[in-house]
């Protein structure tokens, strides 16, 4: 049975910057720390090493919830609340050993419109790369090509490098490719809301076909109307934790109230 189960799941990751990127400086600082005793200030605070130490970000902490087949879950919260990180954990891009993550079913993540695309390659070459990644049989590739070419409306640009595309073209191609698979768990970031009105209308049908076929949908968005329309349940994230979890109407009303 398709489900997602998280039990006390936490994730922290290092943000490396400046000196922490350098082996020389890291070694020097370590060496210094062993030679000179760390200056103690008050309690147990250490000085010196901090300058080159990576900043550890606690992105998710103690998440526990369960999503059953048939649920359409929306993630809301401020920027930096951990929505995208949670999506990446569910997609298996970020891994953590802290807590339990139990997922049953095949998943597909629409994280970023350029997902895995090489900007130097042409649209067609990227399509072949995608087909290879998804294990599409050779005889279906021609059909896939026609389908994507028609949807993305790239015209002659289909045979030009993706880096020359306008942002709209890039999104159309990314969207056309990303919406091809039919997973039982669909994880979407809000990028698919991008594009002009015409694209939005066109994308709607394609997207709905995919969402309908999925047993579980997890979507992050700042657009409350979209969440109201698509979701049966909302997880309100704040500071890497679930602030509120419940039926769409209840949670969104509370969220709106908090914004007002």
């Amino acid at each position, binding site marked *: 049975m398709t489900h997602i189960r998280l039990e006390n799941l936490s994730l922290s*990751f*290092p*943000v*490396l910057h400046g000196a922490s*990127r*350098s*082996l020389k400086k890291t070694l020097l600082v370590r060496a210094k720390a062993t030679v000179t005793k760390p200056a103690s200030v008050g309690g147990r605070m250490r000085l010196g090493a901090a300058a080159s130490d990576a900043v550890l970000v606690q992105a998710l902490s103690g998440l526990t919830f369960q999503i059953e087949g*048939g649920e*359409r879950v929306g993630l809301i919260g401020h920027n930096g609340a951990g929505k995208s990180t949670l999506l990446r954990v569910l*997609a*298996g*891009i*970020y*891994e953590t*050993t802290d807590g339990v*993550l139990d*997922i*049953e079913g*095949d*998943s*597909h*993540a629409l*994280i*970023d419109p*350029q*997902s*895995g695309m*090489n900007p*130097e*390659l042409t649209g067609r*070459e990227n399509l*072949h*790369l995608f087909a*290879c*990644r*998804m*294990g*599409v*049989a050779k005889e*279906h590739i021609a*059909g*896939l090509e026609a*389908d994507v070419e028609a*949807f993305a409306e790239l015209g002659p640009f289909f045979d030009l490098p993706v880096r020359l595309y306008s942002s709209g073209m890039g999104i159309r191609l990314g969207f056309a490719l990303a919406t*091809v*698979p*039919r*997973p039982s768990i669909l994880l979407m970031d809000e990028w698919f809301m991008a594009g002009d009105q015409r694209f939005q209308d066109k994308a*709607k*049908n*394609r997207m*709905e*076909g995919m*969402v*309908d*076929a999925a047993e579980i949908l997890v979507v992050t968005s700042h657009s409350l109307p979209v969440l109201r*329309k*698509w979701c*049966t349940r909302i997880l309100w994230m704040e500071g890497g934790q679930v602030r509120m979890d419940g039926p*769409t109407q209840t949670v969104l009303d509370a969220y709106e109230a908090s914004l007002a």
Partner: protein
Amino acid sequence: MSALSPAPTEPHVDSLSTPASGLMKFDQRRGSPAARAWNDFCETRQLWRLGVMLGWLDIKLRYRGSALGPFWLTITSVLMVASMGVLYGRLFHQDLKVYLPFLALSLTLWQTGLASLVQESCTSFLDADSMIRSSRLPLLLQAVRVVVRNAIVFGHNIIVPIGVFALYHVWPGASALLAIPSLLLWGIDGFAASMLLGALCARFRDIPPIVGALMQIVFYVTPVIWQPEQLAGKARFLLYNPFYALLEIVRAPLLGHVPSAGVWGVAVGTSAVFCALAIWVFVRVRARLVFWI
């Protein structure tokens, strides 16, 4: 139960709705770091076609817009071998008939073989940052990519020594077959280097220039442009240089000799230790790699 209206869907390719598609099954992502790394390896094995394709596209891209493509490298090698051959043949008082085939083979093996594998393995994960961050793919796929890319370039360059061999009518004979297992060992070492150096260089960005500088030194202390015989009685010390052993197990068979047991021992032994180290490091850092790139 869904809030969606049952809108007519666009015509779409059904081939992907089959379970055979490349969607990720999640139950593979559990267990100890070692078990997860093993899964990474198994998934990479399943996706080897993708790895080959990525490597091939890298080459295609590198030479896009140039009519000669990767053969530009071949031409550079020819020029290098010709100019260095004449100069160093004179400096070392060597007979060109012997020295030029040696130098052509040696330089090609070093530059497009060992040195390029080491240098490119440093950026195995860094080069694929957007791919790794946006989709769930086994990391070792990038190691396959590096090895394939280097194998393709190597294939284009090995023409140079073959041409020189033909010019001087030197043929190695049956011993050349011994180079095949040796090249396989290079492939394995390249894979391990992509795991080890690729991971370390993702964490510490000053390692690639350090590696580059070290390889420059190694180039001079390894008999690439000079021959081991020139050391006279001291050649046995070369066995302490693993790059010599690794080079020799491919070069000697192609020059018609059988490498000594000592050379084989050092080459295989160093490779085993190196692979073990690479696996150990990779297992430990695999989950964190995505945050480093």
